[in-house]
Structure formats: C-alpha cells, structure tokens
C-alpha cells in the first residue's frame, strides 16, 4: 500500500508541475492576449481596460493560483474568440475523444493478447512468419493514413459506413458507437501490431528461463507451462507498453477526428491554436495531460500487482 501512496504523491506533484508549466508557457507568449482578443484596430485605452478586467497586470503567481483554483472547480476561464466559458465548449467534446481512446484500447487488448500468444506458441512456423510480416507493415503505417485507407475501402467503395456521418451520443448512443468503430480500428491497428510483437518476444524470452525448465520437470505439458508460468511473467513488459500507448491513443484520436471529421476535443484544440485562443488551448492540454498521468498512475498500480518484486523502492 505504501507503494501506491508514494506513487500518488509523485503523480500529484507531476500534475501540479504540468499545470504550472503550461500556464507559465502561455503567459510568456510574445503576443499580447488582450490584443488577440480585441484585434489590432482597438484603441490603447480599451486594450488597457480589458487587461485590467482580465487582471493580466497582477503578479504571475497570484494569477496562476487563481487560475488553478478555478480549474480544479471546473471553471476553465473564458474563450477569447467565442466569449463563452471554456468549460461549456469542452464538456460535450471531451467524452467523445476519451471514448474513442478507450474503445481503441479495448480493441488492442482483446486482439493482441490471443494473437501474441498464438504466434509465440507457433514461433518459427510459416503462420508465425506471415503474421510477423503483416505486423511489421502495420507498425509502419501512420494511423491517419490508415484512417484514410479505411474511409476509402469501407466508406466509399464498400459503403459500410457513411464518411462524415457522425452522430453524437446524446442523439443516438449506439449509432455513435458504431460510427466510432472504424476510426478506432485506425488508431488501434499500429498499437496492436506493437503489442503482438512485444508479447511474442517476451513469451519466447521467458520460455528460455530456468523456472520453465523446473515447470516441465514437474510434469506440466506445454499448454500448462504457457498459461500457468510463462504468460504471467511475459505480460509484465506488455502492461508497461499498454500504459504508454493509452496516452498515444488519446493524441491519436485528436488526429483521427480530422480524418473522420468527428467533433471531438481535437477539433477545438486545433481551431483554438490557429486563433491563438489560449484559455481553451491551456485547458484542453492540461486536461489531456491529466488523463494521461492518471492512466500512468493506474498502470503503475496494476504493474505492482502483476510483479510482486516491485517493493516500495519502485522501479
């Protein structure tokens, strides 16, 4: 338990430092926030009034803590461009991106586990070499290009889904999910290839270790040794990889939103970047970083359960 507490503390420290860094980065921006909001033709007095109103003249630390306090309470400030609270803009969009990341993650786990074990069991045979070749190619395909290919084949040619026919979960939850299938496949495929390769390599490496020889010496058959001994040990590096890929999937879904034009968090992030609408950019980035860090924290806990050798000392 002490391990979890320690990890929790480091997680909070990291979260805090990220929010500080992001806020600090957006505070020292060359462009003046007020100017961006009111445009170049407004008079200096009105600029000064806005700066005063937004409290931009107060010392940096004071503004940071106030921003942080609001942030934690769910008030992410006001968007320069749309003059509406950032929270409202984001609240409907974030679940879409997070849902896409979760579906892709589930796909990865469900597909790569059996496939990885299967190739490890048949390592060296033709089927294994074939899967490895496909794997190698899949790992080299950028997921947005995969999205384009899927759109072309399944959307335009086979018409299994209408490209651009996104339905929000408020209106029809199941059509919302069914539309997400192909984008999630595009995100998941390269990650599936990676975890199949790692799981296969890890199984083969563990199978050569001494404790496997001991297992055979007790009369276990190959299947028994694999499931009772090898897999448990082989999964440890895979869990670490999965923890890291969750973060990539979040970012991946931002890119894939453009391919399948899904109005998720990514769309807002990109538009607000081009409009230099900093409160929105700040909020989105800190939120995504928070989701990433929380998942890393969960992975660390699962990691500790999977590998009892991890003591308080940590990795």
């Amino acid at each position, binding site marked *: 338990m002490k391990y979890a507490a320690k990890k929790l503390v480091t997680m909070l420290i990291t979260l805090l430092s990220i929010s500080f860094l992001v806020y600090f980065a957006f505070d020292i921006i060359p462009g003046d926030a007020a100017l961006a909001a009111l445009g170049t033709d407004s008079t200096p007095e009105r600029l000064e009034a806005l700066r005063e109103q937004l409290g931009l003249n107060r010392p940096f630390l004071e503004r940071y803590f106030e921003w942080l306090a609001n942030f934690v309470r769910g008030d992410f400030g006001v968007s320069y461009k749309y003059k509406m609270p950032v929270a409202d803009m984001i609240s409907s969009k974030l679940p879409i991106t997070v849902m896409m990341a979760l579906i892709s993650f589930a796909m990865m786990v469900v597909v790569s586990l059996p496939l990885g074990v299967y190739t490890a069991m048949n390592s060296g045979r033709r089927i294994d070499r074939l899967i490895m070749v496909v794997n190698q190619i899949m790992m080299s395909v950028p997921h947005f290009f995969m999205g384009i290919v899927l759109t072309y084949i399944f959307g335009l040619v086979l018409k299994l889904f209408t490209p651009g026919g996104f339905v929000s979960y408020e209106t029809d939850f199941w059509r919302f999910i069914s539309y997400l299938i192909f984008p999630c496949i595009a995100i998941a495929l390269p990650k599936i290839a990676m975890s199949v390769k790692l799981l296969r390599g890890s199984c083969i490496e563990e199978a050569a270790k*001494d404790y496997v020889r001991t297992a055979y010496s*007790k009369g276990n058959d190959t299947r028994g040794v694999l499931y009772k001994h090898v897999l448990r040990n082989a999964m440890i590096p895979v869990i670490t990889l999965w923890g890291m890929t969750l973060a990539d999937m979040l970012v991946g879904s931002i890119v894939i939103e453009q391919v399948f034009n899904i109005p998720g968090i990514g769309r807002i992030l990109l538009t607000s970047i081009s409009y230099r609408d900093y409160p929105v950019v700040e909020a989105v980035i800190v939120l995504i970083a928070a989701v990433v860090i929380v998942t890393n924290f969960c992975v660390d806990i699962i990691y500790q359960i999977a*590998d009892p*050798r991890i003591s308080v000392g940590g990795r």
Partner: protein
Amino acid sequence: MEDLLLEIKDLNIEFHDHDAPERVVSGLSMRLNRGEILGIVGESGSGKSMTAMAIAGLLRRHDMKISGEIYFEGTEILHAGRSELRRLQGDDIGIIFQEPMTSLNPVKKIGWQVEESLRIHRPQLSREQRYALAIECLKSVELDEPEVIYKKYPHELSGGMRQRVMTASAMICDPRLLIADEPTTALDVTIQLQIVKLLQKLNREKNTSILFISHDLSLVRKLCGRILVMHDGRVVEEGDSHEIFTHPRQAYTKELIGAIPRMEKLQQF
C-alpha cells in the same frame, strides 16, 4: 536385480545446432540401485548435466541426435513419448537445479509452486490435503515457519531457503529418484553443508536414491557412496568413493584430486 532402479546403456548425445556436430556425451553406461547415492563429478563441459537432463526427460529433441537406452524401473524412457515421460516427471523422478535464484517462478507464491506436482499427479487430493502435504514437506526440508514461507514470493527468500523450497517441490510426491544437478554451486559454504546433510536425511528416511552432480570433489566425497568421474563426455573412472579418493587409477582423476587445495603451503614458484 529388483533393487536396480536406473540403468543407462551406451548413451550418446550430439548437438547439431552449430555447423559441426558436437558430441557432448559418448558411450555412457551406468547403473543406480534403489536407495543409493551416486555422485557424478567432472569439470564444466564434461557432459554431467546433459546426462541428468536426459534421465529427467528434459532434453529438447529437435537439434540433438540421441542414441542408447535409459531404463527406469525396467521401462525405457529415453525415447519414450512426451505423455509417457510426463507421468514420471515430478512423480517418480524429482530434480533440483543449480541456480536457486532463477529456478523458481518469480511471480507465483512458494506454496503454489511446492504443490504443483500434487495438482498434476494427485488430482484426487483436496485443497486442504494439498496444503497439509506442502506444509509437512516444507518442514521435512528443515524450513522453520513453513506457514509463513508458504505465502511468500521467491525474491523474499535467501539462496539457501530457495534451494530447500526447490527440494521440497521435487520431493512432495515422494519420488523414487531425486536428481540434484549442482544444487550447491551457487550457495555459501556453510549452507552447502546443510543441503548435503538434508539430502542424506531424505535418503535415509524415504529411501530416495539420489544422483548428485557436482564439480566439487570434496562435497561429493562427503555425500556419495559411489562416484562416476566424467571428462569430455566420457566416464573416465567409476567406483566406491573411498576407493576413488585413496588410490585413483586414471590420470585425470588424479589431477582432479590433486587440484583440491590441501592443507599445506604451496611452494612459491
């Protein structure tokens, strides 16, 4: 005749994974009676461990050429099928290995690993019966507080304790033959002594015949009644352990015995 437990006739093992075939064991024959402790001694690369693996049925077959016969209680096991071998492994034949650090599954508890042979060969036993047998077996290898050790993980135990756990997991089905492949090499001197005494006790109490494999001649002499000296895959000399030590016949045996650091000052040059 009926007290002959194990007989090996003209065993040859050749490796084919490199370009030239490499003969690791050639023309090895030996016999082991019930309740006897036989020592196999030789330096690294003499083929002693390969022989042990052949008896325990743990040789990977595909990149090897193996000939000769091994009879265990009259049935041939060298060329036996996987399923037939599995019936013996862990039940009638137990084996402990050299590296206690890596020979136990790091992510499974000690109790689970000690009971493994029971789950395979004694399916009719209930969980409680298995637990009781495991605790009793951990006691028999002189591990104190077996209930505590039962719940621990391998990395929480010392090398000596792990070797005792290995012995317990090999002995739990009361095998007729226990193969000890350099069990003490990775341990401290005082712990080596305890392991040797433990094997002697198990042999006395359960009449388990033991095949003790080591490169440490003085250790083998303390434990084994008969000794086989191996060099480059061949049996160079065989005989009663006292006989071998007092007047060795082969040059290599003499060299081995001569190399044991003795209690007199080495001359300087």
